[in-house]
């Protein structure tokens, strides 16, 4: 049993706590007290957990989730852009054309260049032709030429199809080149005709002018 001093102190224990810290001491402690992250992160990172019933569930920390979200967003943007591009017919055409070009390059590499050369020639002639105003020149034949060119064009595409299937590529290629040459020939003839008509018309218009000046 406690006696004397010990007994007295234990009986009056509470009375011995006479001091009190200054009330503002907490203001000194408060800024040093660790905030939420510091306390929690030591033990566990912030975790998001998903559970789809009992079968499938997974959990991931915040950093992983941020990365995953960014990847999903990028994939989504990429996919929509890709689909939008595919929907435009122009793009589809170029894709088909390039694949065909590649095919052609395999079968007949020289044809690609030949074709390019002739098509550029044909385009040039055609543009020259359009410079003439056919109605003014009093020509309706253009329709016949267009029809002829269209016929040649369709036979050309048929030949091209054959090129992929027939083993005798030389013969088909020859026919194709001939086809292109015919088209240029047709266009050249037409151009010649138009040029001649134009010359005639000019002579007609300049002659009366000369007469007028001589008269005066």
């Amino acid at each position: 049993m406690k006696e004397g001093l010990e007994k007295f102190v234990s009986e009056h224990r509470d009375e011995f706590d006479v001091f009190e810290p200054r009330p503002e001491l907490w203001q000194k402690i408060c800024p040093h007290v660790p905030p939420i992250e510091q306390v929690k992160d030591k033990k566990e990172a912030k975790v998001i957990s998903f559970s789809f019933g009992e079968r499938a569930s997974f959990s991931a920390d915040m950093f992983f989730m941020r990365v995953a979200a960014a990847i999903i967003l990028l994939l989504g943007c990429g996919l929509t852009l890709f689909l939008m591009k595919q929907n435009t017919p122009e793009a589809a055409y170029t894709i088909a054309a390039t694949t065909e070009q590649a095919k052609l390059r395999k079968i007949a590499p020289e044809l690609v260049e030949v074709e390019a050369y002739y098509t550029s020639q044909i385009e040039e002639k055609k543009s020259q032709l359009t410079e003439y105003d056919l109605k003014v020149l009093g020509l309706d034949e253009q329709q016949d030429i267009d029809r002829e060119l269209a016929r040649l064009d369709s036979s050309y595409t048929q030949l091209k199809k054959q090129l992929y299937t027939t083993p005798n590529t030389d013969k088909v290629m020859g026919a194709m080149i001939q086809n292109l040459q015919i088209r240029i020939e047709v266009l050249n003839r037409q151009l010649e005709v138009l040029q001649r008509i134009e010359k005639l018309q000019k002579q007609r218009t300049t002659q009366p002018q000369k007469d007028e000046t001589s008269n005066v």
Partner: protein
Amino acid sequence: METLSYQDVNRHVIDRCREGDNRAQYELYKLYSKAMFNVSMRITNDYAEAEDVLQEAFISAFKNLHSYKAEASFGSWLKKIVVNAAINAVRKRKSELVPLEERTVGDVPDEVYEDETEWQVEKVRRAIQKLPDGYRVVLSLYLLEGYDHAEIGEIMGITESTSKSQYSRAKKKLLEIMREPQFAA
């Protein structure tokens, strides 16, 4: 039983503190600051130093709250932190807490004069404050903080018997101080 119910009362506050709830931390501070400040005051015997100790102890307690297991009451866990911080503070200003000549276990006569009726809390308290550091710390830890000599030995890094003899001398000295005519005045 008493400590168990004591624990239960504060458990939700402690849990909220663990989650970093600043209001809960303040609640806990308010609950314990006065008692802990007096512990610190008795050991350091210096108001400013006792405040520094209290500040340091609370910050360290909040930082290490995750290491607090409910095996002891929160009060005693916190008190241990305060006591250690306070003893460190005293050691800093004075290298030796237990003077060398006191370490030899001598025959310490029991209190000659123990008239309980004359004792007053204020008088005892002031007399304790007048004790030299080594005496005061051991006497306070035993008499007021409720540690036994084995625990005191562990806290202060001395043997149990040294703690016992130190306490006896401290008590003798305390009674002497209280008997001094200028002290009574």
